């Protein structure tokens, strides 16, 4: 066997391995747990923290869609690598900062990292799964696994970062992050990127951008799913952002914050692993998920018990993680590969756009009436997410992928009928129909007439028949070929 032949049959698992490696290392951002501490040390106060958040919030939504379009047109691996480079630069500048200005610059570069990596990763996973297996069935399982790897890395870095800062210095955690993220680049370099999004014909940048936006706005199906993804994202962002406020309200001991945060972050991974076992097309399960989210959101407004509060938040985050992954699948199902990362990033932008007024309002209500009252806003958001989820799942008719669209063949038949002539380009679409004797009598006559006068097509047909004969012989060969079972796609 030649090297070329041996290297070709790649399984999905092997192919996604370098990607997981990259994601894991990219998640090891050691300075995250001590960032606020470090910031106060270099002279941040409440007002400048707010200014930094604003600068950050301005960068991310502005860059999201352009970075997605970049990923679609250029390369998704390289966009992920570019994100890593931004993270490295940001960590270096952050670690070297001695004042507010340079740290704000670092935060804005971190925004580039977030914009480039969000939307790109799930698009790349979706396309790889489709390219390897010819179906989208395993997408949720794999994106779940990758989210689990990512959240494990987050948890690990949250714990390790604190320890590292204790024994060295806060500044050192920034520099320690750099080599880890650098290694992640190697993972992304080694990843064999799917070519699905390059399959469609190249179009000009302008029409590509127009197409991306038109798809997001003009198609009702896409718009509906986009809203679902964005509101689910908004809600889970709100839980992560404001959840700790409840702990403050009940004066939870400081030592609890670490494990609490770890539990919250790990729901992203647990949810990812769980979704492979769940079939969200089942109505009962969907209903349980929505009721669970609503009950937990409401209990945040009623109870003062710390244990119940933490449990409710963790369960809510878990339900939202599951809903979020399912929603992202619905979104990918609805858009073509060539604009996948662009539209997916559009969902990210919409999340930010919705989150800004939501968080301002939440903050205002929490200050005026206490965090318990603003908890009703979460319940309200759950109702919106639940409604959108039901509408979308129902509209998608239980996500059944369209198997095979015989469009090229249909077009060939149309052309042949319009021109009253069968050319080579149309003939090759009809070979299987010809061999199965499924052509109409007049089309068959035209087919044979063309064959009689065309050496190229005669060769083509003869070679196809040789292939079929060769395949038939394989069944008699000593090492018999077995048909793969539908489940054996891994």
């Amino acid at each position: 066997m030649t090297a070329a032949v041996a290297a070709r049959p790649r399984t999905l698992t092997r192919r996604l391995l370098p990607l997981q490696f990259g994601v894991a290392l990219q998640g090891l951002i050691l300075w995250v747990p001590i960032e606020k501490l470090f910031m106060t040390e270099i002279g941040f106060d409440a007002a400048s923290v707010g200014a930094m958040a604003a600068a950050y919030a301005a960068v991310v939504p502005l860059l999201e869609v352009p970075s997605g379009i970049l990923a679609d047109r250029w390369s998704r691996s390289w966009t992920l690598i570019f994100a890593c480079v931004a993270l490295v630069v940001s960590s270096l500048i952050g670690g070297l900062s001695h004042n507010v200005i340079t740290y704000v610059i670092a935060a804005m570069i971190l925004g580039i990292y977030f914009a480039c990596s969000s939307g790109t990763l799930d698009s790349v996973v979706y396309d790889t799964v489709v390219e390897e297996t010819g179906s989208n069935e395993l997408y949720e399982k794999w994106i779940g696994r990758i989210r689990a790897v990512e959240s494990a890395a987050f948890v690990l870095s949250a714990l390790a970062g604190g320890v590292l800062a204790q024994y060295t210095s806060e500044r050192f955690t920034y520099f320690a992050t750099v080599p880890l993220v650098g290694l992640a680049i190697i993972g992304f370099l080694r990843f064999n990127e799917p070519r699905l999004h390059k399959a469609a014909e190249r179009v000009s940048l302008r029409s590509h951008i127009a197409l991306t936006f038109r798809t997001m706005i003009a198609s009702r199906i896409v718009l509906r799913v986009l809203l679902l993804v964005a509101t689910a994202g908004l809600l889970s962002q709100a839980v992560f952002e404001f959840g700790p406020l409840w702990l403050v309200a009940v004066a939870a001991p400081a030592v609890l914050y670490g494990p609490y945060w770890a539990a919250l972050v790990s729901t992203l991974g647990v949810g990812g692993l769980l979704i492979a076992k769940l079939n969200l097309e089942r109505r009962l399960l969907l209903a349980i998920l929505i009721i669970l989210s609503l009950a937990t959101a409401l209990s945040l407004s009623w109870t003062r018990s710390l244990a119940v509060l933490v449990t409710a938040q963790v369960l809510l985050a878990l339900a939202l993680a599951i809903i979020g992954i399912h929603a992202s699948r619905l979104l990918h199902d609805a858009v073509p590969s060539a604009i996948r990362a662009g539209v997916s990033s559009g969902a990210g932008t919409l999340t930010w756009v919705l989150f800004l007024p939501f968080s301002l309002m939440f903050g205002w209500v929490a200050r005026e009436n206490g965090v318990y009252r603003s908890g009703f806003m979460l319940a309200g958001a759950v109702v919106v997410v639940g409604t959108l989820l039901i509408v979308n799942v129902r509209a998608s008719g239980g996500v059944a992928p369209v198997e095979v669209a015989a469009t090229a063949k249909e077009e060939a038949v149309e052309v042949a009928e319009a021109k009253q002539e069968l050319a080579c380009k149309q003939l090759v679409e009809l070979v299987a129909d010809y061999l199965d004797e499924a052509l109409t009598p007049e089309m068959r006559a035209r087919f044979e007439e063309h064959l009689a006068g065309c050496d190229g097509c005669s060769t083509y047909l003869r070679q196809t028949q040789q292939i079929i004969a060769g395949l038939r012989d394989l069944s008699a060969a000593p090492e018999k070929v077995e048909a793969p079972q539908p489940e054996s796609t891994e």
Partner: protein
Amino acid sequence: MKISIARMITNLAARGRAFGNRFAWWSLWFPPATTVDADRFQSDGDAYPDHWKEFPRPWPVGQGVESEALRAALAALPDRWRRVVILRDVEGRPAAQVSTATGLSAEQQRDVLNRARELLREDVGRAFEQHSGRS
């Protein structure tokens, strides 16, 4: 080694094109992909639009398809396509039986078969050329 990598990439690209056609909604946005690369045919401005630019190169006479090359090409197909090809072409089952096993209509099976056989034909043809190049 470099050549084999280049080949892997062209193979993937070829397969990507074939995939482009498998999702009905894609055709809402993009013109459908074809079984054989559209570049292999003359375009509207040429002498014979829609006819081969260059005929498929004939294979050596009197030589059957090498089972090793065919096996390798088969292994490179996406699982679902391979399943249809094996049931229909290797095991020679009738379309109706394959329909119950895969849920694909006879029409859909033909569409898969047409594209899959073309990928196999391309791969096997390349193997023939590699051999003649070596000897």
